[in-house]
């Protein structure tokens, strides 16, 4: 373990690296304030993949890496819809996933919101509508906010969360 601590001291804190600082600092501050005001300091998100390519998930996972560390702003990805305030939907709403996505939404206690992420749920990714696809998601669920991009990068996702927080 001593190796690790040595390394840790040498590396220091990398969260909010200088290159990102200016653009991120503002978002951070605003998100924190909004989460505090509207969600008593903790916004719980349940991510549901309805047929993505997995890149959108990877970018959401990246939000937890030391550069972004989303949790310190009070936003958590939770394991169950029953713990969630918001459902974050990615993917093209496949025929096979549609009933499960709706079920997950029903399990979220009210008040609840839906954010869609990536171009897929809005049918703006290169995929074409066919028998296996039920997107756009708006035909099945009421979406409060959409985060565009294929995939949106972590900063864009954070900005998206902020816009959502301002909206409600």
């Amino acid at each position, binding site marked *: *373990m001593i190796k690790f601590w040595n390394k840790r001291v040498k590396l220091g804190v990398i969260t909010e690296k200088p290159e990102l600082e200016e653009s991120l600092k503002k978002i951070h501050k605003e998100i924190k304030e909004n989460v505090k005001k509207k969600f008593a300091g903790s916004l719980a998100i349940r991510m549901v993949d309805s*047929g993505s390519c997995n*890149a959108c998930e990877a970018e959401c996972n990246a939000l937890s890496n030391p550069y972004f560390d989303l949790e310190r702003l009070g936003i958590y*990805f939770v394991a169950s819809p029953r713990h969630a305030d918001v459902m974050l939907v990615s993917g093209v709403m496949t025929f096979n*996933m549609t009933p499960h996505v709706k079920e997950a939404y029903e399990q979220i206690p009210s008040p609840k919101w839906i954010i869609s992420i990536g171009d897929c749920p809005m049918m703006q990714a290169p*995929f074409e509508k066919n028998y296996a696809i039920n997107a756009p998601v708006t035909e099945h669920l009421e979406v409060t906010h959409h985060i565009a991009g294929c995939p949106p990068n972590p900063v864009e996702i954070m900005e998206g969360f902020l816009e959502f927080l301002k909206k409600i």
Partner: protein
Amino acid sequence: MRFIARFCKEKRECFEIITVYEESTKIEEISKESPRIKTLAKKEPSAIWFERKMQDDFGIIIEDAFDKRPLVHQERFPRDLHPLRKDFKEIQLQEAPYLQYKYEEISGDGVFQVAVGPIHAGIIEPGHFQFSQAGEEMLHLEVRHFYKNRGIEKMLEGKTLQEAKPIIERISGNESIAYQICYRDIYLQATKQELPLSLRKRHALLLELERTIHHLTDIGFIPNDAGFGAALSFASKLSEDARRKMNELTGHRFGFGAIDFENSFIDTASFHEWLNDLKQSVEFFEDWIIDIPSLWDRFDTTGILPLKKAVKYATVGVIARASGIAIDRRINPFYLEHGFSLASEVSGDVAARFKVRLAELQNSIVMMRNFLEEDDTKLEVTEIYDGEYQSFCESSIGELFMAIDIKDGLIERFFVRDPSFMNWQAVHIMMSSDIIADFPLINKSCDLSYAGNDL
């Protein structure tokens, strides 16, 4: 003869059943009026998913199959629809009445079933795992997928190769470069062109970068699933750095659209510098993690896939190499000249898969250094010839196989077999001597794709 894939093509007069082996390809023609074949699954157990898929997609009857349950079509999918047939044109299906899927289950005194999924507790893709449990011990696992089926094969039919590209690069986000390279090879065959060496090097560099990102992510997540979160923090920093490099090189964090025929500028000096840093970090990581006995306690002898089974199920990629099979699409002169060395372990457990990833990571760094060069070669786009083409590529998960038929300049049939499609079928074997709490760890150590599997 290693089994690679088995799929169906609809021709004007008949169905063709194509069976691809390592050294040969077999074609069987069957009539359209009564499309029946004999199962191959008795000899090649992993043929079963291919056959069940054919049955759903084309309505092929597998006469002597011991498992005739639907694979891609789920509880609410309209019965007797075969979407990959040429005369199927519907674009919106209505849900049919719910029809229960019969899981493979072991029953008996005190044995109970645990259903997990399709939606899981983390930020991961959907799929279903059905366990038969005796207390904590897993007696059996059935892996059930295809929740994410987007009908990609059908979607691409009738498109030109160029039109298909943006879709192909988004089949599996983590393997985008590999998919693009498979596509590239088919494109080159169809245009009868050779790829200039410098472009080949650039593409190979990007493929190794993709592998690096994927392995870095995994070497964090695997220990994390064994309760060692510090590794995830450390490795996810490295993978974020690598992803930013990908963005710097290709203009996209996942390299969508990156495999083109124009060499663009790479700042080689800064790339070398980053590679040096990465090498040091990975060495440090290895040195550090090897010293944590409680972690290896969880890794060692967990989720064993014995060599015999790995061969029998025709597994590929990291999983196969961790079980002692020397298989890698990069075993060829081009890669060997640029420093490729095969990573291999024999114990077939979580530890082996983890070590294979670490070794490949280090090898990728060596290769990326050798692939790096500044150059501005271009390849002109030329006419596309009709034909039936196949290609292979070693993605970060394993061997990827793609087949495209082109007729009158348009895609007549698109088929792709993700390495995950083979490997998922072997995952249940890894459970036999472990408890259910080990499942997330075992699953993560394989890190297979759902999107590429489901298409």
